[in-house]
């Protein structure tokens, strides 16, 4: 790919920016920051991954995984602004998801703890967990605002805070899992060719 092609590809982002501005979506800042971060991250990650893959060191590989989890947690925690300890909650959730999945795959002998195997799989797990956590935070905040009366009425009836918010939490989890389920449904036809192509 030539440098000109690369520059022209960026015009796609400009189209999206233009649409966001025209429709007053207010997404321009997020879009610009997201695109710039993607460019910077992709440029550097190539060098870093090459170094880590060649090094094949357990500590370095684990360190990369922790950085990935922390980075995803900070992004998810921003969607939970107003929730106490949002960063800690998202870090613990994403990390536990990764430990369980990776632990299972390693224990069953499906993969070995090599950077070339562990890092790509962790990327997918952490990415999905981040989307789910972000969506969960956003939906929870929205539900607790719009359904405040329901929670108050249930508390007045003597429900515990967990009982009073159970239906809200359940709905939020269902919404948060939707992208993951949709990805699973199209794994063979959309996701896998996409990943392989990439």
């Amino acid at each position, binding site marked *: 790919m030539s440098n000109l092609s690369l520059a022209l590809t960026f015009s796609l982002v400009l189209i999206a920016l233009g649409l966001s501005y025209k429709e007053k979506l207010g997404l321009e800042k997020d879009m610009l920051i997201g695109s710039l971060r993607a460019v910077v991250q992709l440029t550097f990650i190539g060098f870093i991954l090459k170094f880590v893959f060649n090094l094949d060191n357990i500590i370095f590989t684990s360190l990369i995984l922790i950085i990935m989890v922390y980075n995803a947690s900070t992004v998810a925690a921003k969607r939970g602004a107003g929730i106490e300890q949002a960063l800690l909650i998202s870090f613990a959730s994403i990390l536990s998801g990764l430990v369980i999945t990776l632990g299972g795959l390693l224990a069953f002998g499906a993969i070995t703890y090599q950077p070339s195997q562990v890092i790509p799989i962790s990327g997918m797990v952490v990415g999905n967990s981040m989307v789910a956590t972000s969506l969960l935070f956003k939906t929870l905040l929205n539900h607790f605002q719009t359904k405040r*009366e*329901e929670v*108050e*009425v249930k508390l007045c*009836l*003597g*429900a515990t805070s967990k*009982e009073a918010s159970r*239906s809200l939490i359940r709905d939020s989890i269902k919404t948060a899992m939707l992208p993951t389920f949709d990805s699973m449904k199209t794994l063979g036809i959309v996701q896998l060719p996409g990943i392989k192509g990439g």
Partner: protein
Amino acid sequence: MNILECSSIQLIKNEQTILNNISFTVKKGDSVGIMGPSGSGKSSLFRLLNLLMSPSTGEILYRDKNLQEYTPTQLRRSIGYILQKPYLFGTTVQENLMYPYQLSGKKPDFTEINSYLEQVKLAKNILEKKNTALSGGEQQRIALIRSLLIRPEIILLDEVTAALDEENTLLIEELIAHEQRQHNVTLLFITHNAQQAKRLAQRLLYLEAGSIGYLGPASDFFKDKGDHHE
């Protein structure tokens, strides 16, 4: 026996005094009307009694024990709080009337439910109806039954008939009066309706700018002041 005792209650919120030096006692089975202009602290008093807020100073005793010593869950099952705007959750009436049984882990008692429905002139098949299909009066009656199914010892009613017509108001008053006779329930109710206070209250607490303006027999209050405190 005093079931409720408030001693020198003060509530300060955002550096503003909402309630000041409130002291009164309530005996089991009493019916206390609470009146006063908007913003005089009536609903805040109820929120304190239901542990939705805590007083800045002073103490509230329920059965000779400080409210703070009870868990909110334990207390709210003994002191029921019913709000002015009825809120029915879920989709159907049945979901709402099953909720108290779910909380207590008991089997739903349809005889009990049907008896309440009959008292407030609602048909049994209302259980299958959607919440959105109910009128304001029907919703308030269902919300009240839902709270009574918890079997509270004290009921706090916050202007529950304010938005209702006379027919619905009287139906709700009858249900409350019946509950008092049947289960010796203690009643505290906020109202702007002097006629309602005359019908239901034995004693009256009148709040003015967060302080007690009158506390005593309801009949004496209306004898002295007439009906102009609506």
